[in-house]
C-alpha cells in the first residue's frame, strides 16, 4: 500500500493512536470510569435480555391487580394502574428508552460527523451552508421542534428520536469541524496528501482517529440528554402507548402518586442512574484524554525550573567603588521560591537569592531566560502564580519582612511603596476597562483621593510619560493603543502612587527597537526626577549599561556575581557573566557594553532597518 511508504506520517499517527489506545485501558483504571462502565453494562444487558428476565408480559393489563404492592401476586415490584407487572415493564422500558436515545445519538453522529468532515476538509461553500442550517436548527428549543414533529407524524418513537438526532447533530458537527480544521494543515496530513494518498484515505486514517475519542465523550453526554427528552415527551403522554418507556411509567406513576407513590421510584431511579452513569463515563473519558494530552504542557511549564542547587560556589562580589551612604531599601536574603507539584513535592525555581537595593538606586538583575529573575521579582511583590510561594528566606523592605507579611499588609505595600512594570505591555492591561479607569482606580484605593483629583493626576501622568494626547489615551481601551503607548501607560501606572521602589520586569523586551530606546530614556528621566529605586530585570547588557548603578547576574536560580555596574563591565569574573558578554559581542556592536549612548545606537539601528 502506498500509505505504508510514508514513514513519518504513519509514525506520528501510530504514536497518536497508541496514546489513545491506552485510553481504553486507562478508563478502566479510573475508579469513576470503571463504576460508570459497570452500571451502564448492567443496564444495557438487562435491556438486551429483557425477554428472558421479565417474569410477565409488560403490556398485558390485569384489572384484578391494579396498583398491587410489591411482592403481591408475583409482582416483584408491584403492578401499575392497569395491573401490568412493573418489573417487566421496567425491563422493556429500559430497552426502548435506551434504544430511542441511542438511535437519536447515532443519527446525530452520522449527520454531524459527516457534515463536519466535509465542511472542515473542503470548507468554502459547504461550511457557510452548515452555519445557516445550524442557526435554523438552533432557532427553536428542541422540545418545541419535537412537539411540532409529533403533531405531524403522530406517536412514533423512532421518527421522533430521529428528528431529535437532527437537532443534536450540531454538537457532533462542531467537534468534528474543529478537529478537522486543526488537523488538516498538520504536516503529516500534508505529507500524506503530497504522497498521493486520496482524500477519503486521509480522512479515514488521520482525521477520524483524532476525533474518535471526543465523539465517544459527546455521544455519552448526548445519550443522557436523549434519555431525558425521550422520557419527557413520553411523560407528557405524547409517546406510542404500545411501546413501554421510562417516561410512560413515570407518567402513569405520577398520576397515581397519592395511591402508590412507590411506583415513581423505579422509572425515576432508572433515568437518574443511567443519566449519571453516562455523564460520569463521559467525564472520566475526558479526564483521561486531557491527562494524556496535558503531559507535554506540564513539561513545558517545568522547563523554567531547575533542580535545587545549593552546593555551588558563593557569588563573586565586587567591591563598592564609592560609598554613597544611601540607606538600604530592599534586602533579599537566601530567597527560595518553589512551586507545589501535583505529587506533593515542591519544585524550586529560585535557590537562595540574596540582593540589596539602596534608596534611589537602579539595580539590574540580569541572566538568561529561565534563570529565575522574573520569579525573584514576583516573589518580592508576593505575586507569584498559583502554586508558587516563598519557601525560605527573607525579603526586608523598609524594615518589614515581606515574606511573612499578611496579605492585607502586603496589599498596602503594593502600588504605594513597591510598584511593578511588566514585560509584555499588551497583555497587562485589563481589556474590558478604559486606560483611564485603570489608572484612576489604584490611585483612589491606595492614596484615598477623589475621582476628580485622580483623573487630573492620571492625565498629568499620561502627559508626563510622553503620550501626545493624554485625554484620548485616557478614554481609550487597551486594544486601541500601540505596544509602546501601552508600556508608557503601564509606567505611568507604576509611578502614579509615588512608590519608593519600582520592579521592572524586562520593560523593553516586547517592544520594537526604536521604542525600546524611548522607554529607557523615559525610565531614566523619571528615575532622575522622582529619585525612585528601580530593580530592573533584563537579559540585555545594553539596558544595564544605560541605566544601572549596580548589577546582579543570575544563573540557575542563584546570584553568581554582583557589584557596581562599572566594575562588572570592566572586569567580569564569573564564567557565566563572561559568556553573557561574549554573546553580546556576537550580536553586534549596537547593544555593546560601551553603550552609554546605547539608545542612540539603537535608534540608528532601527532607522537603518
Amino acid at each position, binding site marked *: 500500500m502506498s500509505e505504508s511508504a510514508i514513514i513519518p506520517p504513519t509514525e506520528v499517527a501510530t504514536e497518536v493512536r497508541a496514546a489513545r489506545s491506552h485510553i481504553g485501558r486507562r478508563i478502566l483504571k479510573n475508579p469513576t470510569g470503571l463504576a460508570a462502565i459497570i452500571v451502564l453494562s448492567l443496564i444495557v444487558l438487562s435491556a438486551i435480555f429483557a425477554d428472558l428476565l421479565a417474569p410477565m408480559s409488560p403490556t398485558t393489563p390485569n384489572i384484578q391487580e391494579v396498583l398491587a404492592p410489591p411482592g403481591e401476586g408475583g409482582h416483584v415490584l408491584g403492578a401499575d394502574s392497569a395491573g401490568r407487572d412493573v418489573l417487566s415493564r421496567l425491563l422493556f422500558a429500559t430497552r426502548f428508552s435506551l434504544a430511542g436515545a441511542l438511535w437519536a445519538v447515532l443519527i446525530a453522529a452520522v449527520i454531524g460527523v459527516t457534515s463536519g468532515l466535509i465542511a472542515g476538509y473542503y470548507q468554502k461553500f459547504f461550511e457557510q451552508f452548515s452555519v445557516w442550517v445550524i*442557526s*435554523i436548527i*438552533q*432557532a*427553536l*428549543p*428542541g*422540545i*418545541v421542534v419535537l*412537539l*411540532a414533529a*409529533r*403533531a*405531524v*407524524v403522530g406517536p412514533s418513537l423512532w421518527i421522533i428520536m430521529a428528528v431529535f438526532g437532527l437537532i443534536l447533530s450540531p454538537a457532533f458537527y462542531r467537534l468534528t469541524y474543529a478537529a478537522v480544521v486543526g488537523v488538516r494543515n498538520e504536516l503529516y496530513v500534508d505529507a500524506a496528501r503530497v504522497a498521493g494518498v486520496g482524500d477519503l484515505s486521509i480522512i479515514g486514517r488521520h482525521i477520524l482517529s483524532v476525533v474518535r475519542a471526543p465523539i465517544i465523550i459527546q455521544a455519552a*453526554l448526548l445519550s443522557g440528554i436523549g*434519555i*431525558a427528552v425521550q*422520557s*419527557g415527551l413520553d411523560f*407528557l*403522554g*405524547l409517546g406510542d402507548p404500545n411501546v413501554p418507556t421510562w417516561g410512560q411509567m413515570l407518567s402513569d406513576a*405520577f398520576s397515581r*402518586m*397519592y395511591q402508590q*407513590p412507590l411506583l*415513581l421510584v423505579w422509572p425515576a431511579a432508572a433515568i*437518574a442512574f443511567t*443519566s*449519571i452513569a453516562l*455523564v*460520569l463515563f463521559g*467525564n472520566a473519558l475526558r479526564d483521561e484524554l486531557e491527562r494524556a494530552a496535558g503531559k507535554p504542557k506540564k513539561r513545558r511549564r517545568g522547563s523554567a525550573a531547575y533542580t535545587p542547587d545549593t552546593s555551588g560556589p558563593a557569588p563573586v562580589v565586587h567591591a563598592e567603588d564609592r560609598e554613597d551612604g544611601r540607606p538600604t531599601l530592599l534586602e533579599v536574603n537566601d530567597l527560595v521560591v518553589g512551586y507545589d507539584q501535583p505529587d506533593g513535592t515542591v519544585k524550586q525555581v529560585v535557590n537562595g537569592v540574596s540582593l540589596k537595593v539602596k534608596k534611589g538606586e537602579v539595580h539590574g538583575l540580569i541572566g538568561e531566560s529561565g534563570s529565575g529573575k522574573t520569579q525573584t521579582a*514576583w516573589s518580592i*511583590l508576593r*505575586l507569584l*502564580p498559583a502554586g508558587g510561594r516563598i519557601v525560605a528566606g527573607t525579603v526586608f523592605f523598609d524594615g518589614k519582612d515581606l515574606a511573612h507579611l499578611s496579605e492585607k499588609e502586603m496589599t*498596602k*505595600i*503594593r*502600588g*504605594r511603596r513597591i510598584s*511593578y512594570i*511588566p514585560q*509584555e505591555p499588551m*497583555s*497587562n492591561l*485589563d*481589556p*474590558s*476597562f478604559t486606560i483611564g479607569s*485603570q489608572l484612576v*482606580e*489604584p490611585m483612589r*484605593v*491606595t492614596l484615598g483621593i477623589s475621582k476628580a483629583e485622580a483623573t487630573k493626576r492620571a492625565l498629568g501622568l499620561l502627559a508626563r510619560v510622553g503620550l501626545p494626547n493624554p485625554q484620548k489615551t485616557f478614554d481609550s481601551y487597551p486594544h486601541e493603543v500601540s505596544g509602546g503607548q501601552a508600556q508608557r501607560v503601564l509606567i505611568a*501606572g507604576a509611578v*502614579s*502612587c509615588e512608590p519608593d521602589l519600582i520592579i521592572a520586569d524586562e520593560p523593553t523586551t516586547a517592544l520594537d527597537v526604536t521604542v525600546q530606546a524611548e522607554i529607557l530614556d523615559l525610565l531614566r528621566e523619571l528615575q532622575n526626577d522622582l529619585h525612585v529605586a528601580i530593580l530592573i530585570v533584563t537579559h540585555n547588557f545594553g539596558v544595564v549599561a544605560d541605566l544601572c548603578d549596580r548589577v546582579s547576574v543570575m544563573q540557575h536560580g542563584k546570584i553568581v556575581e554582583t557589584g557596581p555596574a562599572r566594575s562588572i563591565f570592566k572586569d567580569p569574573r564569573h564564567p557565566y557573566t563572561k559568556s553573557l558578554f561574549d554573546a553580546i559581542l556576537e550580536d553586534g556592536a549596537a547593544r555593546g557594553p560601551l553603550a552609554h549612548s546605547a539608545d542612540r545606537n539603537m535608534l540608528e539601528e532601527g532607522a537603518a532597518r
Partner: protein
Amino acid sequence: MLRFILRRLLAGVILLFAVSSLAYLLLYLGAGDIARQILGQEATQEQVQQLNTRLGLDQPLLTRYFGWLAGAVTGDFGASWFTNQPVIAAITSRLAVTLSLVIGTVTLTAIVGTALGVWAARKRGAADRTVQIVSVLGFAIPGFLIAIFLVNLFALNLKLFRPTGYIPIGTSFTGWLSTVTLPIIALAIGAIAAIAAQVRGSVIDTMRQDWVRTLRSRGLSENRVLYKHVLRNAGGPALAVLAVQFVGLLGGAVIVEQIFAIPGLGPIATQSTGQGDIPLVMGLVVVTAALVVVVNIVIEILHGFLNPKARIS
C-alpha cells in the same frame, strides 16, 4: 449601537422567516388528510369536504402559505381548529406565565451559578470538588425528574402546602412566588450546574492573565480585582452559556408546567401537539423562535457592554 441592533434584528427577521416557512411547509406536507383526522373515521366524505373548505385546506399549499404569511405579519396566526380561539390570543394569555417562570429561573441561575462558580474557582480543593459533583448531578438529572421529586416531597411527605397550581403575579405577588418557587428550582438546577461550571472555568483562566498580576501590583486587593475585573472578563463566555440555557429552559418549561399544573404555554403545546392542531403549533413555533431571536440579541448587547472589543459602534 443602534445600527448594530438593527442589523441583528434584520438577521433575526430573516431567520424567523426561514424557520416559519420551513415549519409551515413541513407541517402541512407531513400532515396528510387533516379533516379526516379531526372528524374521525365515522364522518362522511361530505362532512370531510365541508371541513376542508371551512379550514381552507382545499386551496393549494402555496396559496395557503402566502395567506398565512400575510396574516402572520400582522400578528394573525389564524384560529385553533378545535376551540376556534384565535391563536394569538391563546398564546399571549399564557406567554406571560411561561416567561415569568423562565425569567425567574434565568435570574436565579445567573446569581447562584456565578456565586458557585466563583466560590469553586477561588477556594479550589473541597469547595471545587463539591461544585463539580453538583454540576455533574445537575447536568445528568433531567429537570422534570427533579420537578416530580419536589412535588412528591412537598405534597406527600412534608404536606406543607399544595405544590401545584398557579397564582398570577397580578393577583398576589407572594402567592405567585409560592407557586413558582418549586418549578423554578426544578428548572434552575441543571442551568445552575452549567453556569457554575462555565464561570469556574473562565474565572480560573482569567485569574492567570498577566493584567491580573499588574492590577494587584497597583495595590488593589484580590477581591477587588476578582469582583470588578476578573468577573467582568469571565462574564462573556458565561453569557453565551446563559443564552443557550434560556432556549433550553423554554423547552424545559413545557414539561415542568405540566407537572406543576401551571397554565403557561406548556399545556397548550402538549394539547395542540396531541390533537394535531397545526395553526396553534405554528403559532407556538413562531413565538418561541421570535423569543430566541430577541434573547440572542439582548445577550449580544450585554456582551458588547462587558467586552469593548465586541462592541460595534
